[in-house]
């Protein structure tokens, strides 16, 4: 939970207020100075009217160099960040040829499969030569290869469900599956901090959508009781189906979801559950099987489990694992299966090889080592950051840790200072997070060694002092405690 100090809230609001006022002044000047310039788009409405892109033009463009930094090597533990410069005050950015080697604390590379791997890459290149880059066809026509079938079986076995279906992109998985499962007359209850793909899918389905407070089973229960009792709005007919959508790890908070209690509530009221494990599959759990394994929930209790291959497996695409009937139904109706080009065969092979490494089926124990490494790394980093006095969100064992910044000026300050000292971090502000709660998000990987983490901690501590984000300094040990220790000895 975020503990926002009052003074910080005030200063943040004041900063945004000043930025807003200056932005409006600039807009005013632009209206006067640009009205003389003729527009050849006479009679056309502009692409953005009025205040629609105010945030982009006046606030985001000032700190544009903190986002979208290009890299010129694989997103491994250390990578090359391309340097950019701007001649017109950050409105456009030009690439240079120079790169600087930085510690990667921002990319989703939880198990270290991002760069060329000794087991996966030769097999991927072999598949590339055999099956070529793409099948140019949809799955139902001529785009299903042996590899796709093999991967579907492997994913189903890994996750603990009877069957699975693959898609070429994680975002499309959510947006195209939810309309195929629910439609008008059904109810979707989703967590308030769910990802944009789930929101899009829910909106595109035509069902009624209600939101429950983040990670709160009691509010979910109240909402369910109220909705089932009252039925559909206006007609009060009973709902056809109710689906509750939650995520395994919330990427902006680093929190694990309260899975056992939410599943208990859902089973009591006979509603269906949909779990999005984009960030947790492969990254948490003793053998990498996700939040179900970590929190002790049986996968058969969850109706539909979804995940992506981008984060822990170093590939691209998504999957849905569920019972055989649901998967067969989806294969007939899901638009992403019927209309979209099938997943590229080398990417499929990468996931197969990564899963074999994690399960130990490649003959080594690299998988187990990676899983232990990421857990150790995450817990070490988080405890060290908390000791230094930063406000770090998230639960133990989660590889995502946001550090709160709050003030809009600290976002570029933190980002640029860290880059100067060769540490690449990701900063997130409005609209991905609430306005006052800007943060820097650290993603730990199994490819980071202890020395890398210690260097990262040093730099972050130095920059944190410079920028002033150590909001909760830990008090030094009082002398009485030292006397007690002496007594025991």
């Amino acid at each position: 939970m975020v503990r926002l100090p009052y003074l910080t809230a005030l200063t943040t609001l004041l900063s945004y207020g000043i930025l807003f006022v200056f932005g409006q002044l600039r807009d005013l000047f632009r209206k006067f100075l640009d009205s003389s310039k003729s527009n050849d788009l006479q009679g056309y409405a502009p692409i953005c009217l009025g205040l629609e892109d105010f945030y982009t033009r006046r606030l985001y463009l000032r700190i544009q160099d903190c986002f979208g930094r290009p890299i010129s090597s694989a997103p491994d533990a250390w990578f090359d960040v391309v340097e950019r410069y701007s001649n017109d005050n950050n409105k456009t950015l030009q690439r240079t040829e120079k790169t600087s080697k930085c510690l990667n604390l921002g990319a989703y590379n939880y198990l270290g499969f991002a760069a060329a791997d000794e087991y996966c890459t030769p097999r991927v290149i072999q598949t590339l030569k055999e099956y070529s880059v793409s099948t140019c066809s949809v799955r139902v026509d001529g785009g299903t290869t042996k590899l796709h079938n093999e991967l579907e079986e492997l994913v189903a076995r890994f996750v603990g469900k009877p069957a699975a279906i693959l898609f070429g992109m994680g975002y499309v998985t959510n947006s195209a599956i939810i309309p195929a499962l629910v439609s008008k007359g059904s109810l979707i209850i989703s967590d308030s901090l769910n990802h944009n793909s789930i929101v899009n899918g829910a909106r595109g389905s035509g069902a009624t959508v209600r939101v429950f407070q983040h990670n709160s089973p009691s509010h979910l229960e109240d909402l369910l009781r109220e909705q089932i009792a009252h039925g559909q709005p206006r007609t009060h007919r009973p709902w056809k189906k109710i689906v509750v959508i939650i995520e395994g790890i919330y990427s902006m908070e680093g929190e694990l979801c309260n899975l056992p209690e939410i599943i208990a509530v859902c089973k009591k009221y006979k509603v269906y559950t949909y779990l999005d494990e984009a960030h947790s599959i492969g990254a948490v759990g003793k053998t990498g099987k996700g939040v179900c394994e970590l929190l002790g929930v049986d996968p058969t209790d969850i109706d539909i489990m979804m995940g992506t291959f981008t984060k822990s497996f170093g590939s691209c695409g998504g999957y849905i694992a569920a019972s055989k009937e649901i998967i067969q139904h989806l294969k007939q109706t899901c638009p992403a299966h019927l209309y979209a080009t099938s997943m590229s065969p080398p990417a499929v092979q990468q996931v197969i090889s990564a899963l074999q490494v994690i399960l130990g089926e490649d003959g080594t124990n690299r998988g187990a080592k990676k899983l232990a490494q990421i857990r150790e790394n995450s817990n070490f980093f988080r405890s060290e950051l908390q000791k230094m006095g930063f406000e770090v969100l998230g639960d133990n064992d989660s590889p995502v840790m946001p550090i709160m910044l709050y003030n809009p000026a600290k976002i570029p300050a933190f980002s640029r200072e860290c880059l100067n000292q060769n540490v690449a971090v990701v900063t997130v502000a409005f609209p991905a997070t609430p306005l006052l709660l800007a943060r820097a998000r650290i993603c730990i990987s199994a490819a980071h060694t202890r020395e890398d983490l210690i260097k990262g901690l040093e730099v972050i501590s130095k920059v944190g002092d410079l920028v002033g984000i150590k909001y909760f300094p830990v008090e030094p040990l009082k002398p009485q405690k030292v006397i007690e220790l002496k007594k025991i000895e």
Partner: protein
Amino acid sequence: MASEIMNATANALVWISCTFDAPTRAVVFGVPIDGHLVVEVLLVVVILFQLTRKSYKPPKKPLSEKEIDELCDDWVPDPLTPQISEEMMVEPPTLESAAGPHAIVDGKEVVNFASANYLGLIGNENITDSCAGALEKYGVGSCGPRGFYGTIDVHLDCEAKIAKFLGTPDSILYSYGISTIFSVIPAFCKKGDIIVADEGVHWAVQNGLYLSRSTVVYFKHNDMKSLEATLEKVTSRSKHPEKVRRYIVSEAIYQNSGQIAPLDEIVRLKEKYRFRIILDESHSFGVLGNSGRGLAEYCGVPIEKIDIITAGMGNALATDGGFCTGSMRVVDHQRLSSSGYVFSASLPPYLASAAIAAVNYLEANSSVLSDLRANIATLLNELSNVPGLVVTSHLLSPIIFLKLKKSTGSDKTDMHLLDSIANQVLKEDSVLIVTTKRSNLDKCPLPIGLRLFVSASHSEADLLKAAASLKRVASLVLS
């Protein structure tokens, strides 16, 4: 007895009339206070008192906990998915090799007309080598969205290459073919805007139109008169042209029918009525035009007149992903407001390098386009007299679309007939063709049919074999 009542009544009446006719006792503000005025004032007070009382409503009792418990116990949800019938258990053919013009399906070699491999780039040595290099250098995935270290230099090179090839200022890459159009449309069209779209657009466009929450009006498939009438109707009704954005959405080659949109006509109408065009060139990029630059080159329209062009790269360019191009304003706007770009991981770098290699190949060998055109012409010639089926696609479209001459009346039986034709063609003559499969979420009203995707690397023998096989099976099944 009666007389006493009579007396009492008479006395009461006398008393009332005395009160009424009582002489003026007082004069207040020049108004003499007569007796009847007092009674009238009393009556008014009683009326006012009644008006201010609340009207009678039966009290509203909220549901008690016990009642809610009962309702929750009684509620029975529908099953998540309907029952699976026997015919839904059919599996698609499994490829065991690359999807080139000759592929191995279920153990035997077939002539493959199911891949949109228009330029024959599957299996091309240059592309495979550049991909292998990219895989060694960058790994497979890009591990992040574009805003957070997911931008790799090959992405920027690919965007610049495509923009240079088409002659536009800039372009933007998406990580999946169908997510391109359904992210672009909601980025530009908001609630209150007007979109005029062709009724035969495919599902991804329909989804984008639905997500944009704008007012959508459909016009008859590829019918310019209907488009003009719709534009006229829509503009005469709209009140604030300066505040409402208006778009025409169309595909260059419709994948549901194989028709080609007459772009010069559309551009003329767009300029007359002040609309913007969103054109989906997934199947025409790298196919139409003298050098493969798409529909604008084929129709002789300057590329600046088309506001937004999107295309999926899973067809002619034999890779995956999509791009969108237009003016600087159009492309820059998407970098922050297009959900499929901002909230999703970026395209894997080896696919971007495959796209660069494919565009280079196209620039260097534009003769492959004439090979493709010759193949299409040959096949169309051969298929002009198939019994029971008629070709409905355009002469230059690389998707050859055949529909039933006489439909049986129901979509399901049509589907059965077409499926049996396709299955027999595959089993007996080893030619892989496909039927159009529609999802139940798809609202396209165009008829279903058989599709053949022609490639520049099909040999003449392949085309003749496919045509002969189709004629034979069609006469068996449809007679």
